[in-house]
C-alpha cells in the first residue's frame, strides 16, 4: 500500500469516527425517549396506563379534545345535573354506565329524580344512586319533561299523556292534564362549566394513548412519524458504522501485532 493511499484511508476513518460520534449524539435524544416510553408501555397493565387520564390543558388542546355542543343543566336543590356530550354529571362527578339524553331533573322531598331516555334515576341528597327505574318499574314510554306535581310527587309528561307516581315510585297513574312545575334546562354557572369542561376533556385522553403516540412519533402529527422513521434509519447507520469501525480497528490491531512480531524476529 502506498503512503498516499494509507493517508487517505486514515482520513476516511477519522471522518467516519467523527460522523459516528455526531450521529450517536443526535440519536441519544431518540434513544432516551423511545426507551422510556417503551419501558412504560411494556407495563401498561401494572401501571394502569389505560385508566389514567391526562389533565394538562395544553396537551388536551394539542389533541383537539373539546366539549361537543352546549351543556344543559337542571338544578336539584343545592346540586346541579348537567349533560355534557353524551355523558351526565352530578355536579362534577360523572354518573357511571350512563350514556343517554338528559330530559330533566327535579328535587323531591326524599330524592332527586333525573329523567333520561327510557329511564328514571333516583339520587340521594349526597348524589348516590338509589335506584334506576325502567319500563318494568312503570316509567312511562317517551318521556318529554319531568316536574313536581302540586302534591310534591314526580310528574311526567310522556308521549301518551301525563303521569304521576307516589313518593316511593311504586305506583304510576295517568292523568288528563297536570299543572306541575316543569323542570327547565339552564346554562350551567361559569365556574361549574369550566370544571365540567375539564372533567369531560380529562376523561378523553389516556396516558397509554399519549405514550403510544410519543413512541410512534404521532404526537407530532404525520411529520412525527417521519421523524421516528429518520431516527430508526439513524440507529441503523450507527449500528453499521459502529460495526465497520470496530472491525477496522480490530484489523489494524491485528496488522500492528503481526508487524511487531515480524520486526522482533
Amino acid at each position, binding site marked *: 500500500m502506498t503512503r498516499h493511499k494509507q493517508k487517505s484511508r486514515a482520513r476516511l476513518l477519522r471522518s467516519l469516527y467523527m460522523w459516528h460520534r455526531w450521529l450517536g449524539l443526535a440519536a441519544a435524544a431518540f434513544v432516551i425517549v423511545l426507551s422510556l416510553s417503551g419501558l412504560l408501555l411494556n407495563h401498561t397493565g401494572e401501571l394502569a396506563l389505560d385508566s389514567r387520564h391526562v389533565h394538562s390543558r395544553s396537551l388536551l388542546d394539542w389533541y383537539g379534545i373539546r366539549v361537543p355542543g352546549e351543556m344543559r343543566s337542571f338544578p336539584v336543590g343545592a346540586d346541579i345535573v348537567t349533560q355534557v356530550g353524551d355523558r351526565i354529571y352530578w355536579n362534577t362527578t360523572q354518573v357511571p354506565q350512563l350514556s343517554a339524553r338528559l330530559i330533566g331533573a327535579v328535587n323531591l322531598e326524599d330524592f332527586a329524580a333525573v329523567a333520561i331516555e327510557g329511564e328514571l334515576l333516583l339520587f340521594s341528597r349526597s348524589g348516590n344512586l338509589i*335506584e334506576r327505574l*325502567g319500563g*318494568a*318499574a312503570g316509567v312511562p314510554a317517551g318521556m318529554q319533561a319531568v316536574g313536581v306535581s302540586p302534591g310534591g310527587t314526580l310528574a311526567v309528561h310522556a308521549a301518551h299523556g301525563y303521569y304521576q307516581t307516589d313518593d316511593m315510585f*311504586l305506583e304510576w297513574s295517568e292523568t288528563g292534564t297536570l299543572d306541575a312545575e316543569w323542570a327547565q334546562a339552564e346554562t350551567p354557572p361559569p365556574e361549574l362549566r369550566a370544571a365540567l369542561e375539564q372533567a369531560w376533556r380529562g376523561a378523553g385522553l389516556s396516558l397509554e394513548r399519549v405514550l403510544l403516540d410519543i413512541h410512534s412519533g404521532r404526537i407530532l402529527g404525520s411529520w412525527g412519524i417521519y421523524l421516528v422513521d429518520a431516527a430508526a434509519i439513524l440507529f441503523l447507520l450507527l449500528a453499521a458504522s459502529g460495526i465497520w469501525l470496530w472491525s477496522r480497528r480490530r484489523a489494524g490491531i491485528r496488522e500492528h501485532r503481526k508487524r511487531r512480531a515480524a520486526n522482533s524476529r
Partner: protein
Amino acid sequence: MIRSLPLVLLFACNMAVARGTYQEPADFIAETFDSAPPSPGIIWLRGDTRDTTTAILGHKYPSLRVRYWGDPQRSAWILEEIGKDQPITVGLVVSGGRLERIKVLVFRESRGWEVRHPFFTDQFRETGLTGDLDLDRDIDGISGATLSVRALKKLSRLALYLHTRIPEGDDTP
C-alpha cells in the same frame, strides 16, 4: 380475501345480533305473572344486606335499593352485573328459595353472549343457596364467555339471597 368475505360478514352479523335486547324487562315481569304483575316491593341495601350483597358480587351493588315483584314464596327480579365492560341485564324468578327461571334480557358486551342460550340458563333451574351463599350445584362454564358466566352466577346468588330478605307477610308491599 374475497373468498373469506362471506365468513367475515357472517361473523360481523352474528356479533351485531348477539348484542341487544332479547326481552324487555317489563315483558319478562308480565310473562312471569301471567300479564298481571303484583305491585313492586323494595329491598334497601343497608347494614347486613349491603355487606352480604357486596360479598356476593365482590363490589357494591350500583344502587342503594333493589325492586322486586312478588312475595316471600315467589319473586321476580331484574338485576344487572358487568361482564367485562358493560352491564348484563338479567331477569330471575325465585320460587320456594330455588331458582325457577333465569333469562338474559339485555346483553351489551361484544363477547360472551352465549350465556343467553337456554342450554346454559337451564342449568340454574332448581338451584338454591348453600350456607356459604354459594350455588348448591355446579354450573358448567362456556369457554370464551367466562366473565359473562361469572356475572350470571353472581346474579343468581344475589337474587336467591335477596329473596330471603323479603319481609314475611308483606305480600303486596
